């Protein structure tokens, strides 16, 4: 016990000791967890830093130049690019259509809470609560399974080709669209709605003529953001044979044609960047870090009839390009396929022997996610300081120019170099990094760890730098003015202020990496994805469904743990 009289002198030193103890404990816990999961993640630095590993890296890097630009290759890639574009468009539209029936029931203000339902009887509200719970659960479930896993499932149902890809995109993003649009609907101004209800309007009327007009700009803006996401997904769907440019990439990597890989990477990055630019230009908003979904504050000036007709025209064009007109789909008899598939897949294989046999893969998935995030943090932290404008750009906080134009140019080069590196690292999807990592270190979980770490370094590095740029600069100026070196300013000025936010981003990323770790196995980079792919290839549909359910449980658990940890920090 500290007596009040002594408190003034004791508290600081005990706080310091407490901080030291916590730091030590955290370090120990982290070290122990890394040691514990090292075997699961098949950590093997010598595979990378051996003569063979380094030789493979240089081999790939040298092979990338010159990129394949032959007419033959480009005329092969061109249609695939259009196919990817069509996939992404149909994916958004299908997602919207699939989400539609759930949205109204997933909007709590319409089902069971708030002023609109205050006067309804207990039974009606109980029914509303039930409908709400069911809709939200469905949306969460379809969202938790990664799109590549859905794509594999749909390939087993309707066969190879873009239909499987459209279905995978539609189902995955229906979950996201339903959840976020429902939240947009919940967040509109309730007072005009109460006035409508007071005038005797039904809830359907309140939804259509009170909520939708208010929510329209945010909803359109969010759908553009979703298109951005479906494009990112569409470029890799081809890896599992679900259409798009990803298939060409898989073939080129497997045939060691790195010049083609270079061309395809540029094409993929360009597609994603173009979508991003179009979407941002219409939304009039900057891209926000993942997790913040609604990136629109500007008023969307597109009238509803225009956005509707654009959607219809885009859908028609995309569907006819992919040969997925309604009658063409009907001719493929998808329902008959689904019924036949269901008969083969149900009931899922929950036999003790099979479930136990998945445990090593589940453990490997977790180990991969954990190791990759630690590696990414180790890489992103030091790099992010170089990408912090207040640190490296001349004329800012640290006055790096100091009169010398050479130093100023050096600072600019550092800043734009690291920013560019981060953009590149995160623009290449995890699964593509996995294909490349396998070339270097061979198949297995270690390749998966490296792949996830590369992508995550790009994401986290950029987020860290943004957070550091946003920290209050006044105390830093004082530190710098007192003659502190840049590293000291970073360590003692920026880091403590930004730490909670940095940790929040990192933990959120851990959740995303668990999700990604479940699919990189599809190309042989370890984890449960490998089992998913094998069982799909060998027609073990009972096992396939079980694995999807396990994936779902794994991602949901990561989601729950991550949001618990983030609440703990904030």
């Amino acid at each position, binding site marked *: 016990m500290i007596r009040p009289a002594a408190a003034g002198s004791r508290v600081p030193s005990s706080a310091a000791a407490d901080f030291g103890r916590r730091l030590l404990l955290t370090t120990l816990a982290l070290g122990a967890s890394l040691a514990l999961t090292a075997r699961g993640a098949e950590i093997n630095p010598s595979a990378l830093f051996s003569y063979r590993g380094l030789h493979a890296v240089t081999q790939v890097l040298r092979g990338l130049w010159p990129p394949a630009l032959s007419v033959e290759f480009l005329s092969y890639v061109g249609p695939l690019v259009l196919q990817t574009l069509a996939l992404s468009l149909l994916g958004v539209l299908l997602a919207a259509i699939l989400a539609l029936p759930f949205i109204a029931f997933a909007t709590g203000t319409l089902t069971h809470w708030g*002023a609109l339902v*205050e*006067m*309804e*009887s207990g039974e*009606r509200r109980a029914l509303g609560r039930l409908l709400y719970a069911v809709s939200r659960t469905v949306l969460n479930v379809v969202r938790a399974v990664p799109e590549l896993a859905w794509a594999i499932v749909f390939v087993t149902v309707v066969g190879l080709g873009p239909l499987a890809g459209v279905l995978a995109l539609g189902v995955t993003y229906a979950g996201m669209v339903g959840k976020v649009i429902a939240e947009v609907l919940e967040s509109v*101004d309730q*007072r*005009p709605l*109460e*006035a*409508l*209800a*007071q*005038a*005797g*309007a*039904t809830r*359907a*009327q309140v939804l*259509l*003529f*009170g909520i939708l*007009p*208010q929510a*329209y700009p945010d909803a359109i803006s969010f759908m553009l953001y979703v298109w951005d996401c479906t494009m990112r997904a569409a470029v890799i769907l081809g890896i599992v044979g679900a259409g798009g440019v990803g298939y060409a990439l898989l073939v080129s990597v497997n045939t060691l044609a790195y010049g083609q890989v270079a061309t395809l990477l540029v094409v993929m990055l360009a597609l994603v960047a173009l979508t991003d630019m179009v979407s941002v230009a219409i939304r009039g908003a900057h891209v926000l870090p993942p997790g913040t979904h609604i990136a629109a504050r500007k008023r969307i000036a597109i009238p509803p009839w225009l956005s509707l007709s654009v959607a219809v025209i885009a859908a028609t064009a995309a569907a006819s390009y992919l040969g997925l007109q309604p009658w063409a789909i009907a001719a493929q008899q998808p329902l008959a396929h689904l019924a036949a598939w269901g008969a083969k897949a149900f009931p899922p294989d929950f036999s003790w022997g099979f479930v136990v046999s998945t445990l090593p893969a589940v453990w490997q998935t977790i180990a991969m996610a954990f190791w990759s995030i630690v590696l990414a943090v180790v890489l992103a932290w030091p790099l992010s300081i170089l990408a912090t404008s207040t640190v490296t750009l001349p004329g800012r906080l640290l006055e790096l120019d100091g009169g010398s134009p050479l130093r100023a140019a050096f600072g600019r080069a550092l800043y734009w170099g690291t920013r560019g590196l981060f953009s590149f690292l995160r623009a290449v999807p995890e699964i593509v990094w996995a294909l490349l990592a396998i070339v270097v270190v061979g198949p297995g979980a270690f390749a998966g760890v490296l792949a996830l770490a590369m992508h995550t370094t790009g994401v986290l590095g950029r987020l860290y730098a943004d957070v550091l740029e946003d920290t209050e600069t006044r105390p830093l100026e004082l530190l710098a003015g007192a003659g502190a070196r840049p590293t000291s300013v970073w360590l003692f000025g920026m880091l403590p202020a930004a730490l909670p936010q940095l940790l929040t981003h990192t933990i959120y990323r851990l959740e995303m990496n668990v999700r990604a770790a479940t699919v990189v196995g599809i190309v042989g980079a370890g984890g449960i994805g490998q089992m998913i792919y094998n069982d799909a290839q060998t027609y073990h549909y009972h096992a396939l469904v079980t694995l999807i359910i396990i994936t779902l449980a794994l991602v949901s658990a990561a989601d729950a743990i991550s949001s618990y940890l983030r609440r703990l920090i904030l």
Partner: protein
Amino acid sequence: MNSPGSAVVAGAESRTNVRELQPPVLHSPAPVPAFEAKGATRVFHGRNGRVARAVDGVTLKFVQAEPAALIGPSGAGKTTLLRLLAGAIAATEGDVLFEGQSWRSRDGASLREARSRIGFIAQRHNLVDRLAVWQNVLAGRFGHMGTLGAARMFVWPAQRELDQAADALARVGIAELLHSRTDELSGGQTQRVAIARALVQRPIALLGDEPVASLDPEMGSAVLALLRDLARTEGAALILSLHDVRLARAHFPRLVGLRAGSVQFDLPTALVTDDMLRDLYSVETA
């Protein structure tokens, strides 16, 4: 009374039309009060377990022919009482009756039907900003139509419906705003649109929660006179909450003084003394 609204009302032709549809409450032998509160209490549960009795054991009757104003300091429970009367929220204890029937016994369609006969005008934020004025006005008809009918009306309004909206707007003096977008209106215009929507409902009661608080005094007085005229010509009950005592005294024959959720007095305006008002608004530190 010489008010800007009365001239407009006299010119409106659809008035007779509306009146034919009114239930003949005024002439029934033993009139059922339009609204009746019997020991009505409403409890709100705030954060960290705080409990507020916004309205506490209020017993009151309101009949068609007698306009009344609720007055009292901020937080006296005026808004909550109005919302209880209008069937927007439920009483925690006691009971609130509309046309002799408890709000509690209404649900779903019967709740909407009863609400559709009450015109409610809130202080602000009555309207859906991104719609046209005529759409906001015609929303007053939602109680009489299904969702498809409402959709049809909003996309292809019949001439008859547009006329109805135009007529209601003419009666509140802003006929020219029929096709404006609602978020381009001034505060006074917005309140008039809200009143026009209430008129389209063909209400048997008009309730208003500080309907003139967002208006300048002159405009406020004009809107109050308009509401009184409309209530008289429609034969509708009129209950408003007002924070401006001078306006309440000038326009209303009956004043209900509320303080801390309870009725402090309920008297004809002539009998309300300055002392009583001082007591009502006094800042006590008991």
